[in-house]
């Protein structure tokens, strides 16, 4: 247990923690001071109560899980596509040029700007959201992975050739671990971008075509009913998921890999 704890908890995190506590206190005091209408600016205690209620009743959990699953699907698909493109770009000048051109075209396009097109092509529903998520994640991820692949020392590649490594094994056993810091930072950026894309897309048409709808739709609806505490509770859920993933996924993975191996960008 102590070992598990030492994986993610570090003394350096203490200042961050204290800062967050202070911020929450300030929030609470401001809300009760009467400067703003509490209907617009609910105190943290009320938001937290709403949050707890949502968690216990399961409403918030269901919405969060729904959005998370979309994000996960988008991330995995983007990852596979980005890896394949980056790998082929490594061995073919043509693929690289095409990938660069596609990147210049699509990277600057905000995902949400493509939503109307996606709706026309894929209908109102999950597929459209997924397309937007993939679009938002794929390009920054591809840039990172390609940069990572290019940064692999030529010594590693030559050793791999000497040992007779080929194809997917070369990618998996040499290129990928050697460029893992870039890969992880691409994943982090992708994760953040996926959240934005999902929330934005869900706000436009979350619960349509029989689906439960995710957090974005939830935020939209609670705002519609002027239930500010519930809106904030949904925001809190997003923040919590973000922190949990940062601490328990990214930090742990980094500690078990790149930091253990003395690698950094």
């Amino acid at each position: 247990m102590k070992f598990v704890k030492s994986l993610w908890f570090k003394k350096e995190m203490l200042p961050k923690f204290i800062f967050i506590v202070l911020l929450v206190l300030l929030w609470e005091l401001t809300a009760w001071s009467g400067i703003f209408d509490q209907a617009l600016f609910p105190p943290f205690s009320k938001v937290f109560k709403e949050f707890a209620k949502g968690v216990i009743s399961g409403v918030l959990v269901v919405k969060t899980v729904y959005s998370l699953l979309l994000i996960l699907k988008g991330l995995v698909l983007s990852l596979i596509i980005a890896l394949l493109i980056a790998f082929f770009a490594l061995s073919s000048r043509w693929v690289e040029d095409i990938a660069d051109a596609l990147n210049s075209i699509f990277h600057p396009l905000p995902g949400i700007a493509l939503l109307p097109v996606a709706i026309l092509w894929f209908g109102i529903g999950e597929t459209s959201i997924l397309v937007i998520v993939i679009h938002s994640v794929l390009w920054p991820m591809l840039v990172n992975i390609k940069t990572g692949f290019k940064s692999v020392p030529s010594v590693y590649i030559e050793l791999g050739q000497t040992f007779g490594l080929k194809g997917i094994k070369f990618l998996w056993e040499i290129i990928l671990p050697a460029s893992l810091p870039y890969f992880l930072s691409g994943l982090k950026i992708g994760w953040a971008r996926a959240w934005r894309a999902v929330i934005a897309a869900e706000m436009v048409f979350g619960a349509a075509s029989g689906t439960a709808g995710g957090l974005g739709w939830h935020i939209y609806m609670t705002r519609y009913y002027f239930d500010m505490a519930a809106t904030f509770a949904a925001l809190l859920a997003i923040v919590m998921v973000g922190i949990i993933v940062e601490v328990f996924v990214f930090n742990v993975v980094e500690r078990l890999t790149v930091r253990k191996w003395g690698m950094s960008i």
Partner: protein
Amino acid sequence: MLQLEGVNKVFKNNGSFIHVLKDIDFTVNSGEFFCIVGPSGCGKTTLLRSIGGYEKISGGQILIDGKKITEPGIDRVMVFQSFEQLFSWKTVKENIEYPLKITGVSKQKRNEYVRKYVKMMGLEGFENYYPHQLSGGMKQRTALARALALNPEILLMDEPFANLDAQTREVLQKELLKIWQELKPTIIFVTHAIDEAIILADRILVMSKQGRIKTIIESHLERPRRPSMKGFSAMWDILYSLLGSDDNP
């Protein structure tokens, strides 16, 4: 046996051409310790990389036991000068074991080899260290252990000890000689330290700044060789003047 016949190498550098290796002809016998010395930039690394199959030569041919080489292969393993040649995500033990695994050596045999070469290179107790936790000397020892475990026909070494302090270098030279005498691989060893070449080599190839073979010197000094022994300084003088008088192509 390694044969180089009329090897030439031209690099294309954004439009201009650099003719690095010019008409390189020589033969290295199996089990020979062959050193290459020459001024910086004369093409030693390029020559070694061509033998390794990492560079495409522009003319001539390189043969091993009569067969032309075109690409890297497990029969020629290179130990680089860089400390960063170990896979940083693998421990010392895993680094040595990995190429054996790829080439299909059984788990049992792998363990045996790893133990043997860890011991031979004095890496006991460091098996589970990651490269970033090792000193430069330890890294080079590991790289050498990894190369030796593959039992290559030819060991290509590009100034592997150049970045080490004098003491560590001397220790590693001694150990390399001991291992060479035991396993008798063919070793082609690039250096620009004259004394290192004399201590190690059966024959020393001297390259000119222009990328030609100046001469190949045979050394019959008895091993172990020490700078104080008879004939050492004479050899040193010869090599020194050969390396110094480089103005006439």
